[in-house]
């Protein structure tokens, strides 16, 4: 019981500290802006640890963070193997193929107004559907290994990417296009020098949406059948064995992979679309 009270005291302390920092004169500093969420997160994790130990919650319901960290360290080899199988082989290859395919289709469709008008509503509709349900079909077609996971990811990222690219290519004003015409620019020159750069914010929006979808697709597809490695496979089998510390360790892997993947695409976006108002300081 003492540990639970300690958790509550810790919560009050952390919150008071954050309130001081956030309402204090230094609230605008980048260091404080980073410190406040970090303190909040650390307080939550410490409370989790104290409450699990204080109420002696069984490990099959909620393992303590230290137990999860110990499992993470002890099973690092397995986790790395799962990461490579799910992220590098499944999600990343599917992401690249799907985004490239959507980009190519968007460029082709963009040449005729008629196709563009047809593809936008259909693509928007498809992007709202639970496409992850195609996983059992694609696992049946492409087998249990990473090929089927990549195929699920391709189907999942295709439509959001297509819609964003088509919308982005239409995002130039008539004045800009007229200017290109007065320069006597060909279709290809207009595309490369005006319309593709103007479409970049939209394209990156599609890419950022796709990073999360790619991981979801790769993990859920493994629930439908997988070789004996992979994040989704390990989660579903460890849940069956009630080895929840392993499940949480895999969730940490998935969360890290998702955040870093998104962060990498966002960093690339910042370099490519530095001219866009949302990136100006």
């Amino acid at each position, binding site marked *: 019981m003492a540990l639970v009270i300690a958790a509550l005291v810790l919560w009050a302390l952390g*919150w008071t500290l*954050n*309130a001081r920092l*956030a*309402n204090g004169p230094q*609230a605008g500093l980048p260091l404080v*802006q980073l410190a*406040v*969420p970090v*303190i*909040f*997160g650390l307080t939550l994790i410490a409370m989790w640890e104290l409450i699990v130990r204080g109420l002696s919650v069984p490990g*099959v*319901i909620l393992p303590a963070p230290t137990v999860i960290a110990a499992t993470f360290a002890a099973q690092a080899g397995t986790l790395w193997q799962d990461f490579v199988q799910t992220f590098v082989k499944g999600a990343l290859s599917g992401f690249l193929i799907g985004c490239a395919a959507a980009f190519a289709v968007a460029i082709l469709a963009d040449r005729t107004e*008629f*196709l*563009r*008008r*047809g*593809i936008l*509503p*259909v693509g928007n509709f498809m992007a*709202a*559907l*639970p496409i*992850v*349900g*195609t*996983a*059992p*079909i694609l*696992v*049946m*077609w492409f087998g249990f290994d990473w090929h089927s996971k990549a195929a699920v990811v391709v189907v999942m990222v295709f439509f959001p990417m297509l819609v964003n690219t088509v919308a982005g290519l239409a995002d130039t004003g008539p004045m800009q296009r007229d200017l290109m015409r007065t320069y006597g620019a060909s279709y290809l020159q207009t595309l490369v020098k005006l319309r593709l750069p103007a479409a970049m914010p939209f394209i990156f929006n599609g890419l950022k949406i796709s*990073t*999360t979808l790619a*991981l*979801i697709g790769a*993990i*859920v597809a493994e*629930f*439908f*059948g997988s070789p004996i490695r992979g*994040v*989704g496979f390990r*989660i*579903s089998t460890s*849940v069956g064995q*009630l080895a*929840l510390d392993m*499940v949480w360790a*895999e*969730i940490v892997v*998935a*969360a890290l992979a*998702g*955040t870093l*993947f*998104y*962060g990498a695409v966002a960093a690339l976006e910042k370099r490519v679309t530095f001219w866009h108002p949302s990136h100006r300081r």
Partner: protein
Amino acid sequence: MSDTAPIAAQGAGVGRSGRVALWARSLGGGLAPVLTVVAALVALWYLACIPMNASQSVLDASRAGIEVTPASPSDRRGMSGTALALQNPGVALSNAYVQDRPKLPAPHQVAAELWTGLAGAAPTSPRSLIYHGWVTLSATGLGFAIGTVMGILLAVGIVHSRVMDMSVMPWAIISQTIPIIAIAPMIIVVLYSVGIQGLVPKAIISAYLSFFPVVVGMVKGLRSPDAMQIDLLRTYGASRGEMFWKLRLPSSMPYLFASLKIGFAASLVGAIVGELPTGATAGLGARLLAGSYYGQTIQIWSALFAAAILAALSVGVIGALERGLLARMGMRR
């Protein structure tokens, strides 16, 4: 818009009435391209059935005693579907759309199965897709409602408290980049071990998935009034509560509906995935899993389309609500 069509409308003077001409023109701009793309997709699907199902088609034909080009099955094993279909065009074509467990069922086979599922069985029987759809939809709806209410409450807190904004908001944004769905099997099993099963665990997953999009969208929406509007209300001497009810909440509505659509789609995926580890008893996810266990491809496709119809209808309902509400508020664009 005036009641009569302008006489200068294209085609207005050539036999058809102006209104018909306008209608025909709007068709060319709106529906026709969509229908063309859909028709092209269906045609592509029919075409793809031939090579996809070719090996089974040829096998069936050779068992029925018809001459097929590589006569021995071992020669056929390594061949691609396209090559088989090209060497046995007649057999591949005639058998592609009539198989019981095709690799790729044809659209009409899926439509027929969907129709039997929707209309062929009583809505309460486990053979009915309406029954499974309802199981999934009730979990989705309950979770979506919980997630939305919690999300709005947290967003209100974030907008009004600087501490909450600085501590919680970065985590809410980061959580958007994480495949949260990975915890679905664990929630199901853990709640099962403490005796909770059925609707509630799936609803919790759905709530969790729709929660963060609503928080992020709603914070954006509640902050959307610009400084001039806020200053105006201040000069009126409006309290914080009045500012919230009369300015912030109304102007957040477009943002709320945009994130509700995203949140519902996420909730539905959550409920479907939540049905996977329960041992495939009821729900569209269970139909998908059972179909993949027993190789019933037509059943998988029909469950998939039922889920798609469910998603489309629900997002359509949210869209209609949005249009109605925004029109009443005079915010219709």
